């Protein structure tokens, strides 16, 4: 089964033109007030979303809301115009937003949050649109959320139905979230495998495996800070990664010295990112130093796909990561300005591709 994505790729190339040039970040960093930021962003594709958001929420929070709305609109537009042939592949790419939104709703129901509180914690950038997410958020409890997802034939209902019994016994949200996370990757590989040796499918699979490695490396680094048994740590391992298998994962969880972390990733594509992260980690002891370095690696790897595979789903992957990174960069500048962060600190936090 092969997929032609000519229409989708043409549309995304036109989206790509709207991505911000690197020099615009410098102009934004040099701004003093919120109005200056709004003025600069009104020259970009963010204008309408930010203007609309500022009506309800003034200031930095309004800009952030505008960025969120723009991201959700851009991504859901891609999902909407994708042809039925390519939809399962694109669904894999945007499924993470649905996964994250469903988790937010489950968390909201778990603590009895209001619909407004839950809706503030979702980003409708996947297949589940804002009205659908609102319907889920309006459900009285977790069981009703799962039932509603089942009635929509949502793939996420399957692991939730299986985990519901355990959750009702333990009351631990982790019993719902963990199977959901693991199932997401299983289901994604299942969908990809239906396309056999199609170029798009292979590329998407490769990138998904890289994402799994990224998640596994970070999980193992985070677990290595706590005393976690080997069995418990394996419960968080996602199989089918690319270069960071079970053995490396176990070694990383047990790593007691920072130097051992570097040894574990030696020879993998992530070695340089881990080395970069290590330099900061030695100074601050924060695992997020590795996360940012790995995020940079992922963004740069994805961005290369614009040029390396211009006629495949690589363009969609590249656009999704680049656009997401752009919103993160803008958020860093906006939030950094709001809390009075040093300009150099803001510059250091940005990933400019």
């Amino acid at each position, binding site marked *: 089964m092969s997929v032609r994505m000519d229409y989708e790729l043409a549309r995304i190339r036109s989206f790509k033109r709207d991505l911000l040039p690197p020099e615009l970040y410098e102009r934004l960093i040099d701004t003093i007030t919120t109005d200056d930021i709004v003025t600069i962003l009104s020259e970009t594709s963010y204008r309408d979303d930010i203007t609309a958001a500022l009506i309800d929420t003034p200031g930095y929070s309004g800009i952030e809301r505008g960025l969120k709305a723009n991201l959700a609109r851009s991504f859901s537009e891609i999902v909407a115009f994708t042809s039925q042939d390519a939809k399962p592949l694109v669904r894999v790419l945007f499924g993470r937003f649905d996964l994250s939104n469903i988790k937010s709703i489950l968390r909201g129901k778990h603590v009895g949050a209001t619909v407004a509180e839950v809706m503030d914690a979702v980003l409708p950038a996947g297949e589940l649109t804002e009205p659908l997410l609102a319907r889920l958020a309006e459900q009285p409890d977790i069981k009703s959320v799962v039932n509603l997802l089942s009635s929509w034939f949502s793939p996420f209902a399957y692991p939730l139905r299986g985990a519901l019994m355990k959750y009702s016994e333990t009351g631990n949200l982790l019993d719902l979230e963990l199977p959901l996370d693991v199932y997401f990757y299983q289901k994604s590989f299942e969908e990809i495998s239906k396309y056999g040796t199609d170029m798009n499918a292979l590329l998407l699979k490769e990138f998904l495996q890289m994402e799994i490695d990224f998640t596994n490396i970070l999980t193992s680094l985070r677990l290595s800070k706590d005393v*976690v048994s080997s069995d418990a740590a394996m419960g*968080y391992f996602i199989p089918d990664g690319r270069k960071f298998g079970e053995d490396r994962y176990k070694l990383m969880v047990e790593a007691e010295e920072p130097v051992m972390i570097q040894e574990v990733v030696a020879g993998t594509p992530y070695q340089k990112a881990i080395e970069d992260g290590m330099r900061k980690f030695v100074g601050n002891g924060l695992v997020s130093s590795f996360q940012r370095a790995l995020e940079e690696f992922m963004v740069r790897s994805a961005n290369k796909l614009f040029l390396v595979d211009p006629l495949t789903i690589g363009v969609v992957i590249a656009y999704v990561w680049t656009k997401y990174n752009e919103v993160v960069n803008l958020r860093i500048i906006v939030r950094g300005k709001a809390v009075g962060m040093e300009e150099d600190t803001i510059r250091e936090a940005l990933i400019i591709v």
Partner: protein
Amino acid sequence: MEEIHTTRMELLQKRKQIELADQGCELLKKKRDALLLEFMSIMDIALQTSEELQKVARQASYSLAVARAVDGTVALRSAALATTPAPFIEISGTYIMGVPVPEIRKTSIRRPVTGRGYSILGVSSRIDEVAERFEREIDIIVEVASVETKLKRLGLEIQKTRRRVNALDYIVIPRLKEQVKFIQMALDERAREDLFRLKKVKKALESRKKERTVKPSEEIVAI
């Protein structure tokens, strides 16, 4: 002004009261000094913990700003929704120099990375760090609350003791001494009056006696 009976009994009573007030004042001064020592040692701990609180709060706010910037408010709110258990704090009481102070016993709310209610697979390590730093901040806030309540209670007791010492030193004891002096003077005056009266009586008696002894001779002269 209270009515003072200028009697010897009253004088003795007042002297006893002065003695008691002196003893009380001395004891209160010792209590005040001991409380001050205790206060100063707790003050050192309070300063240390409050400095630590400021440092941890700064770090926590910075982490929150970074997580809000990089991961976004949506991800932060979502992770925050998963966390339910409130910190467990048990308050009992103890005494420092007889002053009742609260003893706050709490189980640390710092949790392992897998114990925050959410699956770590979908939540960024920056959010973990925010949670970790705010957990540390809450731990210190409880510690600061305990130390500052102790300080407040001890401070109030020191103030109360100082007021009592001052009242004894500058009002009660001087007033008693005045009263003793007054009674003493009154008693002395009375003694002097008695002496004078006795002298007068003696003089009168003597003159009467003298009159009696002079009269018979006069009778003889007349014969």
